[in-house]
């Protein structure tokens, strides 16, 4: 919703000011009006959100679907405000890690890094800031121009000590850099629901075929590193949950096509994501149609 073209910089400073003047709840209250404005006047944002809403709530009528869109806008807005509050240090959020010991044990056992597979759900950016506890450098595979809010609220830059950016638009989709930092013990965070330039596969997601990228699993299998799924959700005003309990160890089996094996792993991730959106329907911030590309592929291949 709050993309660069929608003046993310302006909103960033506006909410920062509101936060200082009226606190978190004041920000939330104002958000309800801002989101109403977007619901009425920003057709593109509504359309982008409806792709998910139509899959998640297929039986609901037009008005109810609009209400779902509104609630998703609110959820995204709260996430942005929370990040501002957290990074500015004006509010502390309790982050409850689910089975954190699994990842800690993985880090103790391995000198090499791992892939952190996340998605546009919950408050993944806030969850990232909590990764400092792992004491490893995190390399975020994002296009900064697609994530101006993330770049600002996470203070992302190539100079950031703890979280660094790998651009998926560099040569070979950043594969060389990703494999290099994994070998050095870094954590490479990849969005499992956004394709960028990496090869994608068709998976079942919310009752239809969707296109999800397969870079995380192919790089993990080739580098011999695990894939840790990171999903976060806002549980209450001051509490978040970060789930990193699902760890995959993708390794190729002889005699089976590598692409088929990768597709099966991506499908497993898609199932996890589906479970998540069933539990937290308004924390899915998929503002683009992942099903459309799968339909287009089907048309291409007759």
């Amino acid at each position, binding site marked *: 919703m709050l993309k660069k073209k929608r003046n993310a910089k302006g909103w960033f400073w506006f909410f920062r000011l509101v936060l200082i003047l009226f606190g978190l709840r004041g920000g939330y209250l104002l958000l309800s009006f801002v989101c109403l404005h977007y619901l009425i006047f920003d057709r593109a944002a509504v359309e982008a959100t409806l792709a998910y809403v139509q899959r998640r709530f297929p039986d609901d009528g037009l008005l109810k679907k609009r209400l779902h869109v509104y609630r998703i806008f609110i959820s995204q807005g709260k996430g942005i405000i929370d990040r501002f509050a957290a990074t500015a240090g004006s509010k502390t959020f309790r982050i409850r890690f689910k089975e954190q010991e699994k990842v800690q044990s993985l880090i103790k056992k391995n000198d090499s890094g791992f892939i952190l597979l996340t998605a546009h759900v919950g408050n993944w950016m806030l969850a990232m800031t909590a990764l400092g506890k792992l004491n490893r450098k995190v390399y975020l595979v994002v296009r900064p121009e697609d994530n101006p809010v993330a770049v600002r609220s996470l203070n992302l830059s190539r100079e950031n000590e703890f979280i660094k950016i790998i651009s998926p638009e*560099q*040569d*070979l*989709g*950043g*594969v*060389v*850099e990703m*494999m*290099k930092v994994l*070998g050095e013990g870094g954590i490479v965070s990849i969005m499992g629901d956004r394709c960028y*330039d*990496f*090869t994608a596969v068709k998976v079942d997601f919310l009752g239809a075929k969707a296109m999800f990228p*397969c*870079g995380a699993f*192919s*790089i993990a299998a*080739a*580098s011999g590193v695990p894939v840790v799924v990171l999903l976060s959700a806002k549980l209450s005003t001051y509490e978040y949950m970060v789930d990193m309990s699902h760890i995959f160890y993708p390794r190729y089996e002889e005699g089976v*096509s*590598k*692409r088929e094996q*990768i597709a099966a792993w991506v499908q497993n991730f898609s199932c996890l994501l589906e479970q998540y959106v069933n539990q937290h329907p308004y924390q899915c911030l998929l503002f683009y149609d992942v099903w459309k590309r799968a339909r287009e592929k089907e048309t291409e291949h007759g």
Partner: protein
Amino acid sequence: MDEKNKMELAQIRAKLKKLLVSQLSLENVKAEEIKDDEVLFGEGLGLDSLDAVEIVVLLQRNFGLDVKDMNQGKKIFYSVDTLAKYIHENRKK
């Protein structure tokens, strides 16, 4: 380039072509059909980012080489010829 170097390069190219066909599971492509200067990604041989991952591993396992400079990646991975030259130059060091 002297004859010895030329011969070494030719051997690397031949080995690379065989490895590309077997490691990347290229269907309906024979090693000897791949041209030395054929573009590997996109047009040409039609490799994609999944194959790029496999080539990085192939270089590590078969030639003991890491591509550390990501800015060189595209230049090195351009064709069998550029890959072979990279291997030849860096193996000697």
